[in-house]
């Protein structure tokens, strides 16, 4: 049905020549796109496998409903200066689940996990469609106080990082979407929240000072994960609970733990202060109190064994894994800054760092009383994480004489305090010495992009290196070509390079976890 709607809409726009009938500016704006993305996986040079044909419709509405204190031009709201409504709908149909190409997909150990053809009709139906009101919120700007409120289903993004995240944690990620080829605003799970920003302006020697805070009154869920073969780009393993027809003893894996989605049981809050210091350094101080989403690359424990023997045995008899899904509350303090150094380097430098209190790790010192070699309890530890980066527009006139190359490099680190030797990761602990929990994890990224032909050709290359885990690497490129202002063709490839030729469970899932997942992409977009 969605495909028919998408085709119908695209025919409508094509048949009218342009979308000029839609208001592009003024108080009421409608815009959107229809997009078809096809992925081919090529684990080696001889093998190509069709794994995705995602057709997406996005519809966006912007409505300036309050202007100069008047609602819809009539009703006086003298305490408000402006108000805007924003709605974004996303509908998806992935034909790969109907075409159902055969051929096995493989897990990280190169073991077959089945194919899309093996999925039941129910499972396929659940995977191929999405019908989602992504965002729906109202912005209210007050007249006499420097306050802006955003109320509704939204994304909140703090911090300075690209590609990976630390302070960007108000919204968990939907990792059943492709991690490499999707933009972050498609990966985040928008949540119903209240956000307020109070602009102070000058505070002593600080300029542009503001405080921003949000409250999520219960609409929170952990990162959404998928397994093989349902999600060919999800976790590179079969569902570990397949042997337990009734799931977990408590909670649902990667969906919800032992809590209710109510303000009393599931509220999340965050607050930050931002200002520009004399000399031009912009900094933020951040604090969060929220459940652990598990999507920042940390090799944390999403589950813990039931340590009470009676409870564990009862669960097993009911066909449940004697485990509970956990998403504990974690305090996080963070700091970020940026500085534009124009004299010597002409570069912007970025820094971000957080301290997490009490992240759960699987601890083999706490074995399950009934499955002691397979399941364990957890121990909480603090973590220090950070990133330092630069952005530099750089002229390389021999390659492009009209636009600079935007070059950005980042170095990330994670440090686990008081690591115990009994900590292990989560991916098949039966493989010795492969799923280590280390004191230090690190990764470097580099991205270069430029613009040709008046903005109609945009090539990008990117590279990632994990110096801790066998120097595994990622390399990729994309090329966007704007055939017209409305029709965009994107082609691209990514290559995951596992230097050691063996599985490696690195934190950020580049060459190790994703080995054998090199892919090529073709994406067509019609935007209006």
């Amino acid at each position, binding site marked *: 049905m969605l495909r028919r709607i998408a085709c119908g809409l695209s025919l409508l726009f094509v048949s009218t020549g342009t979308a000029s009938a839609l208001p592009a500016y003024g108080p009421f704006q409608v815009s959107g796109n229809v997009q078809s993305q096809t992925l081919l996986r090529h684990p080696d040079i001889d093998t190509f496998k069709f794994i995705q044909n995602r057709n997406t419709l996005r519809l966006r509405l912007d409505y300036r409903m309050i202007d100069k204190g008047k609602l819809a031009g009539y009703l006086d709201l003298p305490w408000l200066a402006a108000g805007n409504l*924003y709605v974004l709908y996303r509908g998806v149909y992935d034909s790969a689940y109907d075409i159902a190409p055969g051929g096995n997909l493989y897990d990280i150990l190169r073991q077959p996990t089945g194919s899309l053809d093996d999925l039941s009709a129910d499972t396929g139906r659940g995977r191929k469609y999405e019908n989602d009101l992504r965002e729906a919120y109202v912005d209210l700007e007050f007249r006499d106080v420097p306050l802006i409120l955003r109320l509704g289903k939204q994304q909140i993004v703090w911090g300075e990082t690209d590609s990976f995240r630390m302070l960007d944690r108000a919204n968990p990620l939907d990792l059943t979407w492709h991690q490499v080829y999707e933009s972050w605003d498609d990966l985040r799970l928008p949540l119903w929240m209240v956000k307020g920003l109070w602009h102070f302006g000058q505070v002593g020697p600080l300029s542009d000072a503001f405080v921003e805070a949000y409250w999520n009154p219960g609409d929170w869920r952990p990162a959404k994960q998928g397994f093989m073969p349902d999600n060919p780009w999800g976790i590179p393993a079969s569902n570990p609970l397949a042997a337990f027809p009734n799931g977990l003893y408590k909670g649902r894996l990667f969906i919800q733990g032992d809590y209710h989605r109510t303000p009393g049981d599931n509220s999340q809050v965050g607050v930050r202060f931002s200002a520009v210091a004399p000399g031009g350094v912009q900094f933020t101080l951040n604090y969060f109190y929220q459940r652990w989403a598990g999507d920042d690359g940390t090799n944390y424990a999403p589950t813990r064994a039931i340590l009470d023997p009676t409870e564990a045995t009862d669960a097993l008899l009911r066909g449940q894994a004697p485990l509970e899904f956990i998403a504990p509350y974690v305090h996080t303090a963070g700091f970020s800054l940026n500085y534009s150094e124009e004299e010597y380097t002409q570069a912007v430098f970025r820094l971000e760092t957080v301290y997490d209190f009490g992240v759960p790790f699987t601890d083999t010192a706490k074995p399950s009383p009934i499955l002691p070699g397979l399941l364990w309890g957890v121990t909480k530890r603090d973590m220090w994480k950070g990133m330092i980066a630069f952005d530099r527009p750089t002229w390389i006139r021999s390659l492009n004489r009209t636009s600079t190359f935007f070059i950005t490099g980042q170095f990330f680190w994670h440090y686990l305090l008081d690591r115990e030797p009994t900590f292990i990761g989560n991916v098949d602990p039966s493989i010795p010495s492969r799923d280590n929990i280390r004191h230090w994890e690190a990764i470097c990224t580099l991205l270069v992009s430029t613009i040709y032909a008046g903005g109609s050709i945009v090539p990008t290359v990117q590279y990632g290196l994990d110096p801790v885990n066998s120097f595994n690497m990622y390399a990729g490129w994309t090329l966007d070509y704007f055939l017209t202002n409305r029709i965009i063709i994107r082609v691209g490839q990514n290559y995951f390079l596992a230097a050691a030729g063996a599985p490696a469970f690195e934190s950020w899932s580049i060459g190790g976890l994703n080995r054998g997942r090199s892919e090529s992409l073709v994406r067509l977009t019609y935007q209006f």
Partner: protein
Amino acid sequence: MQVGTMTRLGPAQSACGGWRVWSTPLRLISACFLLAAAASVSAVEPGEVITAANAERIADQVSPGVMWCIQHGMNLTVAPYKKIELPKAYVTATEQYSGQVHLSKDGTNLEGYVAGEPFPTIDPSDPAAAIKIMWNYYYRPYYSDDYLWRNFLADTGPLAETGLTIERRYLIQQNARLFFNGRLYVDPKPELPNPQKLRFKELTGPVLEPLDLKGVGQLGYRYLDPGEADDTWLYLPTLRRVRRVSSAQRSDSVFGQDIDADSYAGYSGSIAWGTWRFLGEKTMLGVFHARHSPVQWCPGAGDFAFCDDWEPRKVYVVEGASSLPQYAYSKRVLYIDQETMWVLYMDAYDRAGNLWKTLINQWRSVDRPSSNPSVTVYPDEQLFNPSFIMVDIQLQHATRSWTPTEHSPTGEEEFFNVGSEKTGIRESHFAIGYLTGSSR
């Protein structure tokens, strides 16, 4: 008026209509040549249409870049000169404060400046003539308190026989500036509370079209201290956050267009970020009383450019070379109208010294933006900018930008010094917090 001295408060047509003052023998030789060429000025009569076929008739009255555009399809109609009276508040401030203004010792800044024109009298033999003209340009009239250009379109693409082939079209909600010093109309004046020592803040965006850039917005700060670089923040919808960006590469193309940050209006950088050379004064053709708003593009191959009435204007010709690192251009030549101090056109040269790009402005000196009864009527004429074009002569590629468009309900898309009540854009909007809190 003394010999060899030009006075802007009492503008008069040059006796010879061509170059007036040169300070070196070499320039005198050039001046003689150009004076001879200038004799052809009288041969062009108001009402005459200039096309590629007869472009040579005005070869000495337009820049090389404009000449290239005419030869590639741009047409113009010669119109009689019309005097432009500057806003009274600006003239009064000039009379009140200019006597106390002088250049700093290194020439890179002004001392004693309050408002109005810093140097109403320019002596061409003054070694500092060029920098004084540029400071006059920096504090030119009309842009004194605040400014808003909204709902503007920008097309970019290659030139072809059939006209501009549009590769990308951008629709941007607004470009707004708030000036902190030199204010003449809106309280507090002449200066806003200014702990950051700012010249202005600028808010551009959000982009309304195309969808892949919808929501992009930019905030920029320009400081009074010319030794301080601009600060720039960009909201990127795909990131959903505000990002600090380097403002060092001011000659970099904007969204891949032919225009760059420094070339808006002719030159948009700080005066201290380059060296300036006074080439003399001349009478050139330029558009200051545009007949068409919305703009009327030339027919056929010339539709990358506006077709309008071009009148003889007395200009300062100033050459500038940027001192910023890795700058794209070796120099730019500005043709600055002596009455208004706004640029008719600007030619930019590549690092090998060859003509690369040209920017041409369409100005319209009127007291109201249209005849619609609901629009703002100003007590003085303002200089509206229905369009400008930037042409990459070497790549034969152009960007044209304009407002109002044919969709504008009243034709009013520009506002001068009217304050926040009229525009709805408040001082608190020029802030990182606003960009962060309101962008989507």
